[in-house]
């Protein structure tokens, strides 16, 4: 005779079946809603430091083209560069320095155009608990300093600035992009961080700035280019022109970026 549990599904089996059926139902519903009417999309890969101005330009662009969905991919420029080199579907790429753009030159259509400049500054938590007064204080072992890793533009600029001033930085951590550095200051985990002046402005009153006069000698130029694989090159070029045009200039200036 067969054991009892082979004859009739037990309660456990029945329960498992019910869970499976429910899961499948949920998945089907999700899949159905995800496959809505097809719209046009424009994938814009932009340096993390461009988060605020590009968010505003995204809205402007979508207002002008009601059928287009602009998708921003914001990360460290080098991360974006590797993604593009590996075939990520970028239509437009805006990098925080020229060397990352040069690395992906083969994937871009035409010459990249410079659209903004930015410079480093020291961000400290409100009240400046470690009493940082200038770039030289960052060499002090008692100050917890956070910078970008040298592979990303803000880290490359930090290294350049350290060399220019003859300062030996002793960072507690090297972060993946400039917004990670800023977050460490906003949450008060670090005493000082090297970020762009625009990031201090974007953080509102959550961090304070200790100006670095020497930073004017290590300025980052931001290039933008249309990808050679852009699905709709005209649309991508239009976004680039928006960034480089009057509206882009205004938004970038408001965020604290310098003229190209």
């Amino acid at each position, binding site marked *: 005779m067969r054991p009892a549990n082979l004859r009739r599904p037990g309660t456990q089996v029945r329960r498992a079946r019910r869970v499976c059926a429910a899961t499948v139902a949920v998945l089907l519903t999700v899949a159905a809603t995800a496959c809505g009417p097809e719209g046009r999309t424009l994938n814009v890969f932009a340096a993390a430091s461009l988060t605020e101005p590009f968010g505003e330009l995204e809205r402007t662009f979508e207002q002008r083209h009601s059928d287009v969905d602009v998708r921003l991919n914001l990360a460290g420029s*080098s991360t974006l560069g*590797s993604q593009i080199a590996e075939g990520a579907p970028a239509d437009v790429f805006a990098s925080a320095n020229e060397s990352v753009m040069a690395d992906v030159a083969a994937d871009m259509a035409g010459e990249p155009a410079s659209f903004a400049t930015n410079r480093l500054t020291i961000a400290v938590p409100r009240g400046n608990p470690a009493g940082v007064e200038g770039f030289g204080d960052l060499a002090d072992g008692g100050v917890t300093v956070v910078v970008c890793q040298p592979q990303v533009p803000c880290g490359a600029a930090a290294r350049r600035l350290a060399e220019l001033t003859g300062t030996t930085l002793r960072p507690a*951590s090297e*972060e*993946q992009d400039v917004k990670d550095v800023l977050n460490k200051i906003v*949450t008060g985990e670090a005493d000082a961080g090297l970020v762009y002046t625009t990031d201090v402005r974007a953080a509102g009153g959550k961090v304070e700035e200790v100006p670095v006069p020497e930073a004017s000698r290590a300025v980052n130029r931001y290039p933008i280019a249309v990808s050679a694989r852009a699905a709709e090159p005209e649309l991508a070029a239009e976004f680039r022109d928006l960034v480089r045009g009057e509206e882009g200039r205004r938004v970038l200036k408001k965020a604290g970026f310098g003229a190209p």
Partner: protein
Amino acid sequence: MASRVVPLGFGSRRTRGRNPGLPWVLWIPACLALALVVLPVVGLLVRTDYTRLPQLLTSDAALSALRLSLVTALLSTIVCVVLGVPLAVVLARARGRGVRLVRAVVLLPLVLPPVVGGLALLFLLGRNGFLGYLLDVVAGVSVPFTTTAVVIAQTFVAMPFLVVSLEGALRGGGQRYELVAATLGARPWTVFRRVTVPLLLPALGSGVVLSFARALGEFGATITFAGSLEGVTRTLPLEVYAQAQADVDSAVALALLLIVVAVVVIAVARPKAFDR
């Protein structure tokens, strides 16, 4: 461990010779599942720049990341055992309404995205977290950005693996031997030492391997809670991520190293996994 508990009738001499046969439909999803695991590794192998491999793997950054990874994963595995074994025993043996709730809480790191775990640790042990603030003021100790933070993050994500495998073994094994030992006059500590722990050893082995492997691969909680600095907090996975931004070949080489380490760990600690 679970395979020890064989239902009556199955696996007996009568049925062992006859193979009930596999339904052929299982082969299709099974092959797909296997491809999903194997093909990405093949992709990695194809992509590897073998001429530069020795040079990439012996760079200072790679070696210090490997050393840091092995040391921290070992330390966190030890912490997992020291704290996790008692927790598993308590969860499996203690009675009361609260135990079910505690069991669910212990499993939290399994389902939580590691980044969230890292943030949670930061809000507890960071400078402005309540415990971190206390440590800073009372003892002058700051946890984030230290190797200790890496070990804590790894322990946080790896411990549930150990606890789950041990607890499963404890529940499956039942309490018969412990009861017998107790009726023969053994005190609770003696029962734990002489009966419970020896019975647990096989499950402990697989639990240790699982949690070591998980600690070795830890990324999200570490980068969020401990930051990323060569030699201090930048473990192998973090180094892979850092390199992926600039030198993909180097990232691939390091990833390969991580795979080799993982395979070696499994081979050394669980040779049975390759037998059957």
